[in-house]
């Protein structure tokens, strides 16, 4: 799994960073989402998929690797 965030679409809700803190965080300057681990280990995949589904801005993209 490869994880990316479209920072133009991101609305700084932080939903992903609350759901999957091992994989996502937020920039201190403006709250925009950042990916901490672009190829997370399988044990994080469920929470990453949940973050993608719940993202209020549809800003998270997941690709199979």
């Amino acid at each position, binding site marked *: 799994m490869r994880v990316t965030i479209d920072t133009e679409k991101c*609305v*700084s*809700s*932080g*939903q*992903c*960073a*609350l759901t999957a*803190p091992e994989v*996502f*965080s*937020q*920039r*201190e*300057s*403006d*709250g*925009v989402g950042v990916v901490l681990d672009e190829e997370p280990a399988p044990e994080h995949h469920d929470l990453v998929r*949940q973050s993608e*589904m*719940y993202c*209020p*801005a549809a800003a998270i993209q997941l690709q199979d690797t």
Partner: protein
Amino acid sequence: MTAIENAAPRLPFDRGNALEIAPLYAELRGRAPVTRVLTPAGDPAWLVTSYEHVREVFRDNRFGRSHPAPEQASRISYAALLAGPSGNHDTEEREHKRMRRVLAPAFSAPRMRALGDHIKTLTDGCLDAMQAAHDAHPGEPVDLTELLAFPLPVLVICELLGVPFADRAHFRQLSERIALLDGRDDSERAMHEFMAYMSGLAEAKRHDPQPDVISDLVAVQADDPTFTNEDLARLAAGLLFAGHETTSTRIALGTLFLLSDLRRRDRFVADPDGQVDRTVEELLRLSATSNTGGLLRYAHQDVEIGGVRIGRGDAVLVATDAANRDTSVFSDPDEFDPDRSPNVHVAFGHGAHVCIGANLARTELRTVFPALFRRFPAMRLAVGIGDIAVRRNRLAGGVESVPVLL
């Protein structure tokens, strides 16, 4: 069809009790996803009740909070908040995005997580007060609203914004007056007092900045003279109002959901930590608060949506409470199901305007329910659910009190 059936229904709609939503929402959705209604002020508006179209309106930047000709805009109520257009039609989107990025760091997930232990300590203090009230009059009901649902979110938002908790009686009555749907002149007077109060706090922080949101806003002013003292005061008042009113209501309604059927309580008590995340999402989905139909938007252009043509300048009420019970998305939508997954509700809105305090609210709610039910596992309601008075004349709804026996 008779003239009566044809007439646009007027908000707020009647509902059975604090845990239900008005059946008219589902009835309207059955007719069409977007229908004509009259606002509590009696003006025409479009009500969006389907999940799909609610999300569509939230995502569509042709809908905004400002109005091309504000003096002609439909009025929603005679409260001083969310009653009509706000912001400048030409610059709204840019301004909103900028302000969001200023405010977002203070409500970010890492900061909220760091705040978690402190919220737990504050919660324990509220639970001690509940125990003390019980011990003072054993066997008598304790008001959970007064001792937990109100003070806890106020304590937290006061610290984040930099507002003295000692002033709570003052801003509590201001918050109540600005949100009265028929408040009229008194709501406006209260809003001015509220803004004056916030301006005073901002002035103090201008000379002595603190690590809080009002100081962040003051810092924005240094770079941008177009962000006036009035803008700052209005925004800060809105944040203080939203920061406690909404979460207070969710704590009160959430407790009612868990206590109105003791099997729900007992199930939650058996494993609070394991169930809290999904339980909180289900409580957010079901706790219906709006008395004005939903969140307010105005069309910035003619828009075709859900089979109707919404004209430029028309008011649109986005009914999240109704969308969260749309049968096309949620099976048995009126049932409380703490296992529901996925549960992609729109309690915090959706899109660019999604609630900036969502992480804060989730952190508070995920802290408060396990702590509450661990401390008082046998807690029950002192009255029937039908006897809990719903505040029908208030913007954010909610209930007057939640009397419980510990």
